[in-house]
């Protein structure tokens, strides 16, 4: 079993829709949770960063962490065609700079 599981999609939505992207994990020691966005033929770029449980909002993006369920989510409101990309979740433990990535979900927002 992989440490981090992520539905690969692809996920296709109309412009303006609310998008929900999710990851599950098995390691209860994970404390840091990240979402990366990767455009085609580019490197991943950090989108959101959350420590422990709770929510974090940044513009149209909201990251949620539910440690009791070992489940994290990224919500995108008012999705735009420019949001079309692959979204990767990543996690790490406290005091250990090693990152575990999901396989990525490919999102397509149609105009």
């Amino acid at each position, binding site marked *: 079993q992989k440490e981090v599981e992520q539905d*690969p999609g692809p996920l296709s939505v109309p412009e303006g829709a609310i998008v929900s992207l999710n990851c599950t994990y098995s390691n209860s020691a994970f404390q840091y949770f990240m979402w990366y966005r990767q455009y085609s033929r580019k490197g*991943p770029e*950090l989108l959101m960063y959350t420590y422990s449980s709770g929510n974090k909002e940044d513009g149209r993006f909201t990251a949620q962490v539910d440690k009791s369920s070992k489940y994290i989510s990224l919500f995108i409101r008012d999705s735009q065609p420019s949001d079309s990309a692959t979204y990767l979740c990543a996690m790490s433990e406290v005091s*250990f*700079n090693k990152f575990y*990535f999901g396989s990525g979900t490919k999102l397509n927002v149609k105009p």
Partner: protein
Amino acid sequence: DAGITQSPRHKVTETGTPVTLRCHQTENHRYMYWYRQDPGHGLRLIHYSYGVKDTDKGEVSDGYSVSRSKTEDFLLTLESATSSQTSVYFCAISESIGARQGRNTEAFFGQGTRLTVV
């Protein structure tokens, strides 16, 4: 953007030849990583470094070696390239633990090297 440069950006090589990929950073970050990205597998850690001359294996290290003689440079070597090593390779960096008020820090990625082994 974090100062990370990967070279070359594209390479085609023949099976059995040695190949070295270079990652150069200007951020003075302690940790450096090499990942490979393949369809259906996401990002998989090959090797990482937690300081000059300090390296360790990741989950897919067979067939790869690394070296870090300076803080800013992390080299990935395929000793004898095989077709299964055709992939996109990403270098990443992160700060040391506690560098930012006791928090762990995120990884920043380079633009990738597309390697084809024929």
